[in-house]
């Protein structure tokens, strides 16, 4: 597909918003046992920058889930590809996502983590695209609400490209 990139969010804008998110989260989780759950792979960039803005103690962990593809096993069911190393029972869990659009994978993740009985389970997403939502999911902390575009950069990829961009851009199809 031929495409071009149109700037959406600049580096400074993103940094300022992440600093604000970090402050809010630090206030909300003061005195609590916080586990940051970063969802592999796109959210790593955001999780690193966000965690540096959080001033209360936390434990950082990672989780990976398989993505839908036509080659998935015959039974084709979403599964955990990298599980948490920490036991989250009784702890305050904050899922860190780069983007929430259809809500399909986040819905699975929430259902899965809920069965492990955390004391609290919330979601922080840098980007939120409610216009594309199929499954209703909560986004407790959001960086930016985006219109219905396909965003790349700052961890978000298109066929593994553009993750390394410091800004966020819209991928626009060209005829």
């Amino acid at each position: 597909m031929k495409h071009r990139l149109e700037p959406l969010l600049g580096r400074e804008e993103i940094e300022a918003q992440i600093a604000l998110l970090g402050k809010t989260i630090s206030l909300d989780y003061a005195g609590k046992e916080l586990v940051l759950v970063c969802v592999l792979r796109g959210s790593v960039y955001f999780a690193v920058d966000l965690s540096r803005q959080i001033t209360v103690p936390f434990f950082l962990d990672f989780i990976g889930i398989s993505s839908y593809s036509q080659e998935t096993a015959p039974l084709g069911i979403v599964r955990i590809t990298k599980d948490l190393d920490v036991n989250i029972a009784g702890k305050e869990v904050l899922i860190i996502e780069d983007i929430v659009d259809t809500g399909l994978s986040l819905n699975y993740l929430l259902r899965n983590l809920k069965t492990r009985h955390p004391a609290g389970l919330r979601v922080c997403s840098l980007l939120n695209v409610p216009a594309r939502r199929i499954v209703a999911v909560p986004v407790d902390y959001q960086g930016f609400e985006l219109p219905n575009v396909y965003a790349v950069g700052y961890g978000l990829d298109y066929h593994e490209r553009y993750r390394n961009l410091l800004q966020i851009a819209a991928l626009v199809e060209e005829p």
Partner: protein
Amino acid sequence: MTVITISRQFGAGGELLARTVAKELGFLLVDRSRIAAGLTALGLPPQLVRFDETAPKTEQLEKKRCFYVTALHEYIMDLAASQSIVLLGRGGQFLFRDRPDAFHIFVYAPLAQRVEWIRQLYSLEEKAAARLVSEQEQRKKRYIRHAFGHSWLDLALYDLVLNTAKLTPQGAIKTVLYTLSQFSAKHAPQSMDKAAALLQPEKIVKTAKFMHESEVEFARVLDFYNIPWQYEPRTFPLHWDSEGRIIEAFTPDFYLPEQNLYVELTTQRQKLVWKKNKKLRRLRELYPEANAKIVYGKDYRSLLKKFGLDENVET
């Protein structure tokens, strides 16, 4: 020959499962209507069919009931001697307990969930649904206990136990077909190969008879993320003529029960979808309780992009 027995709690969806599995495997489905037709054709007085799956009531009827049960068991054993069958209920887990080529499945769901399904299915008040479920449950329990002297809740009777509240209907079917494909196949290589062949995801999904390839893909995505869905379960009349005939209606492609959401998929270009938008507005006016949304071509293409399913990349 293979015998698959499906025992089910009332309201847990065992009937749909039995019907689909029989159809997919090409086995004879032995359920109430097959039994009634078969026994009557053999000369059993039709009025005796009402004793099907019932426990003794009065002494004077007991003789007739026993006669029916004996005829029923003979009929089922005869059927299973000459062909592969899916037997729904009727104590199949006991009748074929010692047969090595029999596979026994038990289908259940929590009471509250079954009451809710029955309430929806028959449009009942909650109390009436709860009463129906409890009556049917008691009846089945007493029938099995009386006919076989054993509780049907003994796990040792079953090779597979399914909680349908935790699975989508497609998921339950897939689980059964997959399990049957792994069933020590030496007893029935041919039929079980068929179960394995049916596990190709498109074959399962296509049982819903979709109109477009995009709908097949969308259903697969929902299945993948374990989101229960129904295909075109409801048509909403939108306009009527002066004699009350429906002249325009809208049938959204999907219903997601957990989200209470109707989804209409359109892969047309944005400017061609005004008609669907108009229908959606009208739907919201007439049926404010129906939560519906259109997934536009652009949304759909984003979904495919996200999963790397769009065409090759060029810059």
